[in-house]
């Protein structure tokens, strides 16, 4: 029962960026509270407790999913669409991370139901500050949707 539940799912295919994100979040949350997945299919497997993540079916819900837009296999937008289309997962906050600021991407992200859209700054200091704030906000400040209501909502 002492096990730290996974609270943030980080979908990031670049191992370096994942490392830098984890390093940036080091003072905010325990490393065990963050799980890293590397492509769109693995992300959905984790979220829907399928495949290698089938054992997670009864785990507490995620507080936030941080999704890189450029994921292999299924990109961030496709993953987002599936998460938001499923009544069991659609209330989980999703933060889109991108290195692009092309307007059309931002609009598309919000249209698909993203809760936040964050551009990775090029400068590392800014990057670290941004990720830190992002972690603080979604992991501590933001009140996650109550577990029950996810199901209630689905029955309506």
């Amino acid at each position: 029962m002492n096990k730290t539940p996974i609270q943030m799912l980080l979908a990031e295919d670049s191992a370096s960026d994942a490392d830098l994100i984890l390093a940036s979040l080091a003072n905010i949350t325990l490393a065990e509270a963050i799980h890293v997945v590397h492509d769109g299919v693995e992300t959905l497997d984790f979220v829907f407790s399928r495949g290698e993540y089938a054992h997670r079916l009864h785990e507490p819900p995620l507080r936030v999913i941080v999704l890189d837009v450029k994921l292999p296999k299924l990109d961030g937008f496709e993953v987002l669409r599936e998460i938001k289309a499923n009544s069991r997962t659609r209330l989980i906050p999703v933060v889109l991370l991108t290195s692009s600021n092309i307007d059309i991407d931002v609009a598309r992200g919000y249209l698909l139901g993203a809760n936040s859209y964050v551009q990775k700054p090029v400068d590392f200091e800014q990057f670290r500050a941004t990720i830190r704030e992002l972690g603080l906000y979604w992991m501590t400040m933001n009140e996650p949707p109550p577990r029950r209501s996810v199901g209630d909502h689905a029955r309506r």
Partner: protein
Amino acid sequence: MKKPPKIRAPSHGKMKEQTVAVPLLSYAPYDSPLIDALMDGESIHQLMVDSRGDYAIFMLDPNGIVASWNKGAEQINGYSRDEIVGKHFSVFYSAEDRARGKPERELVIAARDGRFEEEGQRVRSDGSEFWANVVISAVRDRADTLVGFVKVARDLTEHRKQQERALADAQALKAVNAELESFTYSVSHDLRAPIRQIEGFAKILEEHLGVDLDPQVEHYLHRIQEGSKQMGRLVDDLLHLAQLGRQHAKPRVTPLDALVDEVLTDLRAEILERAIEVRVGALPALECDPGLLKVVFTNLLSNAVKYTRRCEHPLIEIGQIVTDGIPVIYVRDNGIGFDMKYVDKLFGVFQRLHRTEDFEGAGVGLAIVSRIIRKHRGTIWAEALPDMGATFFFTLGTEGQDAATKSA
């Protein structure tokens, strides 16, 4: 009395009209009233034929039967004189044109108006089609009776091919440019991540090693971070340049003095700190994209601020000179200037005229400026002397009539 018809070779493009006597008589039947009409007046002298044979010149009787035939006609249409004389001229038209009565209609128009001209498809004796410029002129005798027609045709196939080639070339060039822009864009886009990673890991490594860090190691780690930061700025500038290529100018009448004020406000910290004297003269309101022109002033004024760094009394002047009614905007400084023999390199990408150690920068700023000015169909140039300052001049909308509205 009606004047005899003026018959001349059609001219198109830059072709010069050519006047050559026609050996018509040798081809025409001697008893034709058409010949009488021609023999009779001066008109024969006015007939022209192309000596190189790329004009088909032949005569038709009032019913459209071919009455004479020249070498050019033989070359272009493919019929020998013996084959064609006596046949109806509709054989030069496609089956569809014949079915629609086009040949006859052209004769009616020529008879009514004295002349018919068009560019259109014609058919050679072997059935192949070619593009031709055709002029049919009515020939009348002294009693104003229609005695026939002179038809002059020029094969435009080669001309048309050239036009098509030029168009294809222009399209290919456009495609290559678009590809290049999107390539630059994606390259600079994808370069951002690894740059951040290098900088980030160097930083984290430095933090992990803590206070006991060997000064030499610390120095190297700083070098790595500096290098990646510099590369990040460079990529940002390139990205900016690539975005400019994709962006369309949205021109509207903009008072330039307001733009200059905004830019000076952005730069005020360094201007105040170094007590730079800034003189802003009267500036016009011009048709331009205000966002893009702000980028122009930002670059020119930042450069002026940067390159006066070694001046005891730095001075920057912004103003306009009106030459031939055209406002020329200038930004002048009394900084280190440059040698005019390098002026050609000034507006190129990654071209720097000073050492990075002395004056930072990636060499993209003036390339951006020049691209924006070009987008506004303007001109930019510079005058400078080493250690005597530099002046940048630009105009907007002076190339072509429609100024920035059509820029891409």
